């Protein structure tokens, strides 16, 4: 069946040694195959070429953080496309998304406000009302954290937040989970009070 499909649709040139061309041709062929047959064909090909298949659970940890971004677009995704996918709704969220992009697509884990502004311009976004203020706020909200020499870097929760976008509920949950649990002032006071009472009782006895 594999042979039939190859012969009947896109002809593969004999000098198709380039991986990109080969991939393109394979994608063209596979797009003509019924969805229920694709998995079987891929398995057959993997068996034939003795290639271990990578399932969703086998994704290496280094790449797992990029889930949600189609692998084929990973290298060529422009900042504009990235923001279009993530749909940030405020200046602060846009800063977080741009920080994420700098870290993962531009190999710039440490950046300044100017880097964010430049990338924002490149991404064809409206200018920030006040870029420095937006970056400061992104830091206060926990999307960014200070790095050395006045730089910023994206925080762990910031990364998870951007990864969760455009699912706003999931993104909100990420930030809620990341927020440090503080004991309420009232709770502290009552606890202190009860502790004091206990001490007094002990002393009386």
């Amino acid at each position, binding site marked *: 069946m594999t042979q039939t499909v190859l012969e009947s649709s896109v002809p593969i040139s004999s000098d198709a040694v380039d991986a990109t061309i080969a991939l393109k041709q394979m994608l063209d062929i596979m797009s003509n195959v019924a969805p229920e047959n694709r998995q079987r064909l891929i398995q057959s090909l993997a068996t034939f070429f003795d290639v271990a298949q990578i399932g969703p659970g086998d994704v290496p940890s280094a790449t797992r953080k990029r889930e949600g971004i189609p692998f084929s677009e990973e290298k060529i995704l422009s900042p504009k496309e990235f923001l279009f996918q993530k749909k940030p709704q405020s200046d602060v969220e846009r800063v977080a998304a741009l920080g994420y992009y700098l870290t993962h697509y531009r190999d710039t884990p440490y950046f300044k406000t*100017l880097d964010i502004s430049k990338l924002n311009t490149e991404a*064809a*976004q*409206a*200018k920030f009302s006040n870029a420095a203020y937006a970056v400061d706020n992104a830091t206060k909200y926990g999307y960014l954290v200070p790095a050395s020499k006045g730089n910023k870097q994206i925080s762990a929760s910031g990364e998870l937040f951007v990864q969760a976008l455009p699912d706003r509920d999931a993104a909100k949950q990420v930030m809620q989970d990341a927020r440090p649990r503080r004991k309420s002032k009232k709770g502290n006071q009552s606890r202190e009070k009860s502790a004091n009472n206990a001490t007094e009782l002990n002393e009386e006895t």
Partner: protein
Amino acid sequence: MPPNSMKRHKSKRIAIFNHKGGVGKTTLTINIAAALARLGKRVLLLDSDPQCNLTSYLVDPDVVDDMLDSSETPKGRTVWTAVRPVAEGTADVKVVEPIETSISRLFLIPGDIALSKYEQDLHTSWGECFQRRVRGFRGVSALSFLANSVSAAYEIDFVFYDSGPNIGPLNRSILLDCDFFAVPASCDGFSVQALKTLGRTLYEWVRDWSTVMNLAPDDIYLLRGRPTFVGHIIQRFREYAEQPATSYRAFIPRIERGITSDVVNVLRELDKSLAPLSSTQYKLGQIKDFGRLAPQAQLQGVPIWKVGNANESDNAWEVFKALAEKIIERTNGN
């Protein structure tokens, strides 16, 4: 194809021009261009004012500073990056890639303070044109060549030049390159006064350039040299009962008379096709003072209709939409 024989692209080139400052040239340019883009046109903004106000409107100030710092490096992408080789006589125009703005279909070639150096050289280039020197023609038409190349590459429908408030050689080259120009005027006596010199200046520029065109060598890229007047835009007035308030209203007929006598009639002395409409048809629009919306929009780098409440936004959009539609109609830019 050698640059000096490049054909003129079909995009319509327009300047919102008045040599008087503070009449809202830049704000109008951005909003009209954005309205045209919203109506589906592909628009290029070429910031040819060394003050770079238009660029600062659309781009973060720190990014503008960075662009100015790097304009003479290989990474440069301002208007000075493009014309510098011509100004320094080292090469032809370096066609720079425009910035894609946050407004869909609207592109920007950023301005540069160093453009004033180019303006100084334009004095010499203008003289060289009369001596039939190719170098002079290249110098004078450098911005035009840039607009032409980018228009062709990006399939631009409209090019808007943003000009500074003066009648220097840079604005002369810009106006002579335009297919059309519109005159913004504020409701005050100074605007009325400025119209007198505006018409006469344009007359002299067009007349001199037609002499130069007759002297030009064959197959050289030239400025069009025939800016057609599409109308005036009265603005910066307050309203009362949806009409311009009394103190502003007094200036409107004076501006209209000034446009007819000092611009339309003067251009017609030279060539009737430079002001082809009848005198009553030149009012392109009337734009009230949008108050806090204008600085808010400037702060956010968006058109005026993108700020304010729904009602204010709708009103602003209707005003600029009507203006943009009129420009499309009058420039035959379908």
